[in-house]
């Protein structure tokens, strides 16, 4: 591992100033992704700026029953918080379905948003990879891609963003709050991840050197919500496909619906086409299947991840079906 210095600022402004003054520096939160990537040479910072002592560790319920979650809140603390379990069930379930108990104690909300892909080529510095080394090529396209994206990818990169937590945050219309050298910014989560295009190394719209300070979530829709994840073993594995959804049914028809997909696209994916197709339709399996098909009509699977089209379709139908039963439809 390359040598680095370590600093532990006490205020947000101080952290941002340090980061802006040192291009080779990185923020360190739980370290579960960054330290891992430093060990294998993918990240080579010359300074780590520890952001766990900046007072960003609180979860507050806002007056309108939304949430404000500090960026350094641990994944465990967020998942077990009573208000989150009660009103934002899919968020609690998404986090609990990710990683392990040990990792969730270390991992933070800010770090989870910015965790890097698990594409094996990205992690091997002896191989080309456009995300790690822009312009070098994408060996996954003709190589190992059975867990890669079927939606929203480009010929420059077909990797997925691996987070479970963010899939739920997408469904709940969260907003990312950050501090830049020139002041605070707020970015709706739907604008936070960039389309891959020909710049897979630029993953978010977060301004340069910005420190994520927290995430706000508006009041939960009056609906039951849930997160369901499919993976290659029963626990402690990344998603091959996942769905976060919330559904409100009135008089047997879909009144409101939110659907987000994980393991499907270059970033956690809001299934807006499916949502639009469902509004006002009967809350039946037939409608759910049509909506899922509409969303996945744009899927472009590669030879080894074609299974994901059927998997995600079935997941969407199953989760909406469960929510409809819960809603008494």
């Amino acid at each position, binding site marked *: 591992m390359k040598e680095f210095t*370590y600093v532990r600022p006490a205020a947000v402004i101080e952290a941002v100033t340090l980061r802006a003054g040192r291009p080779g520096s990185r923020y360190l939160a*739980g370290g579960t992704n960054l330290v891992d990537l430093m060990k294998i040479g993918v990240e080579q910072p010359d300074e780590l700026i520890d952001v766990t002592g900046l007072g960003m560790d609180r979860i507050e319920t806002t007056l309108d029953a939304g949430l404000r979650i500090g960026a350094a809140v641990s994944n465990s603390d967020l998942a077990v918080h009573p208000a989150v379990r009660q009103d934002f069930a899919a968020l609690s379930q998404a986090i609990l379905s990710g990683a392990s108990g*040990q990792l969730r104690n270390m991992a933070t909300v800010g770090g989870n948003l910015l965790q890097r892909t698990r594409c094996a080529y990205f992690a091997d510095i002896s191989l080309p990879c456009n995300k790690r080394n822009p312009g070098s090529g994408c060996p996954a396209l003709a190589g190992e891609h059975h867990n890669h994206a079927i939606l929203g990818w480009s010929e420059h990169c077909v990797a997925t963003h691996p987070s479970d937590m963010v899939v739920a945050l997408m469904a709940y219309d969260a907003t990312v709050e950050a501090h830049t050298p020139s002041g605070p910014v707020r970015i709706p989560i739907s604008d936070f991840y960039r389309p891959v295009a020909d710049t897979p190394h630029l993953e978010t719209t977060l301004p340069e050197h910005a420190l994520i300070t927290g995430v706000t979530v508006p009041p939960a829709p009056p609906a039951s919500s849930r997160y369901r994840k499919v993976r290659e073993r029963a626990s402690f594995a990344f998603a091959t496909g996942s769905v976060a959804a919330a559904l409100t049914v009135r008089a047997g028809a879909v009144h409101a619906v939110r659907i987000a997909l994980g393991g499907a696209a270059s970033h956690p994916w809001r299934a807006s086409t499916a949502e639009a197709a469902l509004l006002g339709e009967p809350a039946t399996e037939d409608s759910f299947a049509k909506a899922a098909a509409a969303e996945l009509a744009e899927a472009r699977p590669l030879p080894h991840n074609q299974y994901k089209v059927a998997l995600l379709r079935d997941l969407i139908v199953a989760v909406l079906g469960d929510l409809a039963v819960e809603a008494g439809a």
Partner: protein
Amino acid sequence: MGRVEVTLTVNGVRHAIDVDTRMSLLDTVRERLALTGSKKGCDQGQCGACTMLVDGRRVVSCLQLAIAADGREVTTIEGIADRDRLHPVQQAFVDLDGYQCGYCTPGQICSAVAVLQEYSDGWPSAVTAADEPAALDEVEIRERMSGNLCRCGAYAGIVAAVGRAAEA
């Protein structure tokens, strides 16, 4: 360039040590404090052999930089027993064959001690139904212990041991 002094309280004993900023908590405890109970399986957060408690919470110490744990209280497998009296989790592992080669065992036991605490604090797991209080049954134990792999496959004994300790 990267040498710093850290203060760690490990199993109740305070140590001031200078370390390279690159040192993990795992390497620091093993190489500098000669507490070699904690094991290195993968060094990537994937196996749980290095599990320790930091300020009472279980972590994978291979991904924890020592410098970032400055000032914290660390408990390793060497600090789990009450002097000569084994912790109920340790006793249950002995009584119910919770290991074969023993390599994963220190991490399994530290993790299980934390699982019992998380459970008594009312923490749900991914398999906890929203409307029922979870019993620490086999399904819950398997889910909550899934961050600790065992290459010998001693899982049947491990699950039984954690279940027995939960009743103690």
